[in-house]
Each structure stands twice: as C-alpha cells, then as structure tokens.
C-alpha cells in the first residue's frame, strides 16, 4: 500500500508516494534521482549508502523512507552549502588524492563531515574508528585519513600543511559534481 510522504532532502521538500517497505536508499536514488548516494552491500556493512539524518550519519539501506519523514536528510549533493564551492571535506578529498573509483566517496565524505562536526580535532585512531563503517576497495585508506586530517585543519581555520594544493579544487572542474564522479584518476 503506497502512502504519500513528504521528505526534506538537502533543504528541498519532495512529495513521493512510496510503499512502506522501500528503503530511504531506494527512494533517494530511484524516485528522487539523487544518485550521489550509492548502494553497495545493502546490509549495513559498507557505508556506500551513508546519508545524514538531522546531522547524524546513518546507512540509508537500513532505513525505511517512511521513517525519514519529519527529519532533515542530507546527501552528498547537499554537503556543499554553496552551489559552486565544495565542502572543505570534499575539497581535501580531491587535494589529497583520496578518490580513485569514487564509489565509496560520497559515504566516506559524509562520515568524515559527521566525525568532524562532533570532534573537530580527531586523533588518527578516532579517524579510523569514525570511518570504520565505510569501506573502500581502492585507496588503501591512507589518503582518505590524510584528507580528513587536512579538512580538520582547514575547518579549524588553520591552513593545511600545503594550502596551495587544497585550493584549486574549490570551484574547480569537480565543482558542479560533488559526488566524486568528476574526480577519477
């Protein structure tokens, strides 16, 4: 039985008719066409489907879309607040070379943004633990950890070690496509 629900995603309101068993992941991708949110395992193990719900990171594959009613959903498409500038986490992922195939990137960036929102100065161990629900098959993680350290520095207002490398990304070629699709090696 379908019911019409109102979802708030990235500040926009969508009205969609969904059966209650559809996951938030399916509705975001298939009904709202917000395909920046990926689907990997569908089991809660890989984190490719990560979104923020009222600012908290969750796996959208384990959540029914109807459960998101009344909450604010943020996907990678809404991570950058301005249209032509990337979120510092996104800019540093590009600058650090933390993206290879890009499939894990949206989820990884949202988890990193969430981690930094709670803990602006995470230790290396806290970064690893904070991202332990997001798997990457390509990068070996080191560049991802580096990107998070740099984003932490940048968000705290300090210039990252080599600030110059971080800047071209902002408003650069990937500016219109923060999902990481424009940043293949």
């Amino acid at each position, binding site marked *: *039985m379908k*019911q019409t629900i109102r979802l708030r995603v990235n500040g926009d309101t969508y009205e969609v008719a969904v*059966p*209650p*068993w559809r*996951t938030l992941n399916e509705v975001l991708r298939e009904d709202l066409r917000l395909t920046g949110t990926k689907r990997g395992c*569908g*089991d*809660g*193990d890989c*984190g490719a489907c*990560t979104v923020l*719900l009222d600012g*908290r*990171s*969750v*796996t959208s*594959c*384990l*959540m*029914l879309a*109807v*459960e998101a*009613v*009344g909450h604010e959903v943020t996907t990678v498409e809404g991570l950058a607040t301005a249209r032509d500038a990337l979120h510092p986490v996104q800019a540093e992922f590009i600058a650090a070379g933390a993206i290879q195939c890009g499939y894990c990137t949206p989820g990884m960036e949202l*988890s990193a943004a*969430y*981690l930094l929102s709670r803990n602006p100065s995470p230790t290396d161990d806290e970064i*690893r*633990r*904070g991202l*332990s*629900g*997001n798997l990457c098959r390509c990068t070996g993680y080191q560049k991802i950890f580096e990107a998070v350290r740099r984003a932490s520095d940048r968000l705290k207002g300090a210039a990252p070690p080599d600030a110059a490398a971080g800047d071209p990304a902002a408003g650069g070629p990937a500016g219109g496509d923060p999902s990481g699709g424009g940043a293949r090696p």
Partner: protein
Amino acid sequence: MQYHRPTTLAEALRLVAEPGARVLAGGTDLVLRMRDGRERPDALVSLGRVAELAGVTLGAGSVRLGARTTLAELVEHEELGRLFPALLEAARVFGSMLVRNLATVGGNLCNASPCSDLAPPLIALGARVELASREARRELPLGDFFVGPRETRLAPGELLTAVVLDRPGPRDRSAFLKHTRVTVDLALVNVAVALELDRGKVARVRAVAGAVGPTPLRLLGIEALVAGQALGPELLAEVGRRAGDEVKPISDVRASAEYRRMLTGVLCKRALATAAAAEVS
C-alpha cells in the same frame, strides 16, 4: 503492509496488540529480515515518535534506559559511562558509527541474538527490563528474559519499554571485553563482569559470556571460584583455565568451538583484572 507511527505509548500498545503487527525501532535488524523475506509483517509499528520510550533518565537510586535509546546516545551520555564502564565499553565497540546512530537498546535485546553486545554487560550489572502490554506491565530480571536464539519471554502484544539499572555503590566496578576478527564485526566471544570489591576481596560478582551458547550465559562456577577472594595472579590464571568449561559454544564460519572456549577463559580473566583495577567514581 501497513505502517504506523504512534506518538504515545498507549497508542503504540494498542497497535502492537493487532495480529501480524511488528515493532520497528532502529531497523538495523528488522529491515534486513524483511528484505530477505524472513519476516513478513502485516503492519509495522514505528517507535520513532514515542516520547515515553526515549532517552536515559538518571534517578536517585536507579538509571532508566528508554527502549529506543540509541547506542550512540549511550556512548555520548555524560555520566552513564562513569557509572557503568562495562556498558560504555560495549556500546563503544558496537558495530560502526553508522549503525550506532540507528540501533536501539530495546531492539538489541528483543532481537535476542546470542552474540548481542548489550546483553552480557546489562545482565552482569543486574539490569531489569520493563515490559508493557495493553493490559499489564511487568518487570523481569534481564537474565530471565532470553529463552534461546531470537526467542524471549516477550508475550504477543508486549513491548519492551525500558531497561532499569540500580545506581552502583562506591565499591562497584565493571568491565566488558569483546573479541572480533575485524573492527566492525559480531563478537566471536564477549565477556562482561560486574563486582563489588571490599578491602581488596570480591564481595559480590556476576560474570556473563556471550556468543558461546543459545543465550548469554552466567559463569556461575567462576563467580563461586572468585567470591570472597582477592583477584591475584594465581586465581586469575585458574579463571582462565576454567571459564571455558562453563560455556556451550558452537563451531561456525567465525570460529571453532574450541577457540571460543579458550577465548572465554582469556577474556574472563582479563575482564576481572580490568574491573578490579578500575575506579567507578
């Protein structure tokens, strides 16, 4: 399938009493089971809006964990971890951040998985569960709640509303240890202990092991062994040798029964040592 989102406990209890209704909390277990067709409810009753079931309440003599308190809320709570170190540690190593932001205390217990990470520390800490139906309310020691894998004493139409813990005394300590292959994984074995130390000796103790039987198991022989004793190196070594005899593990893809017995001994010994050295306040 119908979907209901009650805002009061009374409404939730009325909906849960309908035949074919299923409670939905964090969904980290139920959504997967529905997707695989292992579960086909006629109606889902979401707890997400029921205020009575939310959050941690610190009372004068007891602490109440509302059923829909998430694992993340347990970790972030300012005082809970100081009162109940075993509970904090179990919540800290539970799943990933993404799962902790969804999974709830009530869902974890009602799921009754033999490898639950919350059941052993809560049983060791002497927790009670509050159960409610449209007709009645009752309280059970959590140790009596589990019947078998995925089976509890919850009656049809009954909800778990809260977990209640007594506030620890000044000499109470607790610890939890979990062994996994990788960071985000279900326990091969987990062990929780809670004890009262009186002038260096164990005045009262509960030791519980998970993932080594159909339900979490009290290690009664170990409790008898250490009662009244100081936890010195020889006694702890004896704990390490004997704890494995008290459990009934199976061999599966994660580990052999023999390895699980050995791990039970090691974790039990270390948990007792950790608790004995740890200050509660």
